[in-house]
């Protein structure tokens, strides 16, 4: 079947069952995103990937591609909204890029640079989120969590361990681990788990490896996040 829609005027072919995001990435067109990961079922919570399909705003990672649809993504209005969403994620948590070992490999940081976010705009909330350093090999720094649930999905769907889940509601929503003590050392997480590899920010970190690759040579130091997706089917290699 030969179906296609247009994305900012460019024709994008899609397979039945693909979402707008999946088809766009397969064609080498970048739509900014955070909670989407090509290996997992789309989730649609960060809303950074919001596009307009025939004039109607919707998350491109969850909306099914439709033949003949006109999709807008790279417009001043949508980019401005993405900047606001990224600013919201920055003020909601405690993100101190200069002291973060994920700097340069962080999607939130990379996206902020790519979108031209120059300030947090809103007042910082400075939530109290103690780190969990209980595990001998793994550090959890909840300060940087953007609640994308990728670790939740990876641990449940791939690792079959359910190490992570969410608790709380609204602005108090937070990541928890699967242990009565609430500590990571009492879970069955392992360094080889898929959940160790999917965090787009710096929450789930293997210990003693932080600066193996120096700042300046890291993934998004070499080229901006949008340029990582400019080859067809580049999405699968990302992450």
């Amino acid at each position, binding site marked *: 079947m030969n179906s296609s829609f247009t994305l900012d005027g460019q024709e994008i072919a899609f397979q039945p069952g693909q979402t707008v995001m999946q088809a766009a990435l397969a064609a080498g067109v970048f739509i900014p995103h955070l909670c989407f990961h090509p290996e997992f079922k789309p989730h649609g919570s960060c809303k950074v990937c919001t596009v307009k399909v025939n004039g109607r705003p919707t998350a491109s990672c969850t909306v099914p591609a439709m033949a003949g649809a006109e999709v807008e993504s790279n417009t001043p209005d949508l980019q401005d909204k993405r900047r*606001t969403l990224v600013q919201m994620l920055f003020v909601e948590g405690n993100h101190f890029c200069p002291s973060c070992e994920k700097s340069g490999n962080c999607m939130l940081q990379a996206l902020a640079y790519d979108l031209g976010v120059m300030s947090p705009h809103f007042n910082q909330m400075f939530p109290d989120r103690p780190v969990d350093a209980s595990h001998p090999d793994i550090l959890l720094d909840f300060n940087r969590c953007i609640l994308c649930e990728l670790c939740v999905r990876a641990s449940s769907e791939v690792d079959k361990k359910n190490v992570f889940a969410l608790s709380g509601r609204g602005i108090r929503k937070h990541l928890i681990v699967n242990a009565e003590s609430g500590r990571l050392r009492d879970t069955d997480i392992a360094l080889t788990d898929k959940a160790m590899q999917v965090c787009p920010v710096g929450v789930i970190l293997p210990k003693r490896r932080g600066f193996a690759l120096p700042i300046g040579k890291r993934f998004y130091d070499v080229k901006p996040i949008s340029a990582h997706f400019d080859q067809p089917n580049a999405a699968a290699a990302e992450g």
Partner: protein
Amino acid sequence: MNDVTDHTSYLDPILERYQRQPTYVVQILREAQDHFGYIAPAAITYIAAALGLPRARVEGVAGFYSFLHTEPAGRYRVLFSDNITDRMLGNMELLDYLCNKLWVERGKVSEDGLVCVDTTSCTGMCDQGPAILVNGHAITRMTRGRADEIAELIRSKAPVAEWPAEFFAVADNIQRRDILLGHDLAPGEAIRAAVGRGPADAMERAVSARSWRESYPAAVRGPTETLDEIKRSNLRGRGGAGFTTAAKWDACRNALGQARYVVCNADEGEPGTFKDRVLLTRYADLVIEGMTVGAYVVGAKRGLIYLRGEYRYLLQSLNQVLGERRAKGLLGPHIAGQANFDFDIEIHVGAGAYICGEESALIESLEGKRGVPRNRPPFPVTHGYLNQPTIVNNVETFAAAALVAAKGGEWYRAIGTPKSAGTKLFSISGDCARPGIYEYPFGITVEEVLHDCGATDTQAVQISGPSGVCIDESEFRRRIAFEDIPTAGAFMVFNRDRDMFEVARNFAHFFAHESCGFCTPCRVGTTLLKSTMDKIASGHGTQHDVNDVFRLNRLLETSSHCGLGHTACNPMVDTLKRFRPAYERRLKSLDFEPAFDLDGALAAARQMTRRDDAGAHLKTEA
């Protein structure tokens, strides 16, 4: 953990009663808390193991609902309903008064673990506030005298069940009846009318016929004829969105699935709304009759009522009505003597989450999960409860459907306006002489309603709650109908003495408290709105903050995951449009005024570069 308490002794009977089914997680947690006072970490571990669920998932459910506590929250938990109408009746003074009496700080459990006094979202008693909940039991018409008595009862550790019965009296306050509140149907009449629309032996022939081809037309005639009546009635959903009821039922009926479900949305959480409270108190038979008619039309065997936690006091009477109907053959197997018409209903009690009024979040909650709205499509009519075709309708919609089934679609459609058939229940509260429930045909003007409820000197009316609209005097000639001002029923009246900024600020706090937190714009945006409104209230706001409200509105109304986020800025935007002075007199500055002389600050730079041309000066406004 050093938890040596034996949780098995009280958890086992609860788990047994719910057949260790994971769909009952919310019910199990609620009852576990009723027994132990809170949900202890060891209890969560035990429940998770018994249900075969990851522990973290059960903890996540317990952490989602306002009324569930994973640490000691006070043997007496006194929650003041904090809708704006309660505020107007002085709930905050009473809260402080009670805190002083009990020597406690608001929101903190007393050191002996005896009591905690706090606020909660609207409890649906706006017509008889200030209202409170004590360990989940509703108490209305709070006064200082009553607060004194309550403080005494708590100090003497009297069980809430032994408190004076008059504390718990909830008045119906029905002020105007029309076809629904004045109906004369006997239990079963609508069901018999629905069944009577098909051939008498339709259902029997459906199961005994040699082939589906032979039986199909006859077997479906009862349900399809009834569906046609609903279609003819032009009945639209009464929960606010106004989706055509027949279209929903038809889609569910035609969807593929192993089972179909009928769900009654009794999670009446919109602040200012309390009509379902009265329907479930006095008209439960009619509501359940409507659900049964729905089951007949779509072919469901099981129904669920999602009763908001604040209305838990209705659980016993509702179960009694269900029992009576079973005894009369109006629920259970072979309803109305039809061989293949089996349908029964169970009640799930919510645990304090406004978002569960959103139908897909409600279904998640029914399945024992966090009440987070699903991605749609697919919609519940094809993939609802347990991923099966499901109709979710408002309490009032089911009651109206029963009327239609009994009296016909043409009769119903003749009432109201061409686009809004029938009548609507209004929950009227705020500044009026006679708050309560009013039933009007659609098309009534706001002015007429204000006159009837004895509202004078009215400044504004908030229609359909915080997520609805706020209108001023210039719009009182507008009509309540889907084609003009649609409503789920709330009608809050504000006279000229009221500060509309404080009204909006109360609603901003409500949305921040009730956002489920799934999507970024709503989770962070509602909290930013709340702090912006607090900043303006404290006298530190500027024009910049007002601009931010509009900026957040543009983002939330387009990119939020569900209706909560889409409408969360409405109260601010509406009041800014109509009552801007209420904001402006609080702002530090109406313009952007930097704290220092910008051009002056450039003087040193000019000196160093030896420039003094026009380009080296900031442009001054003419």
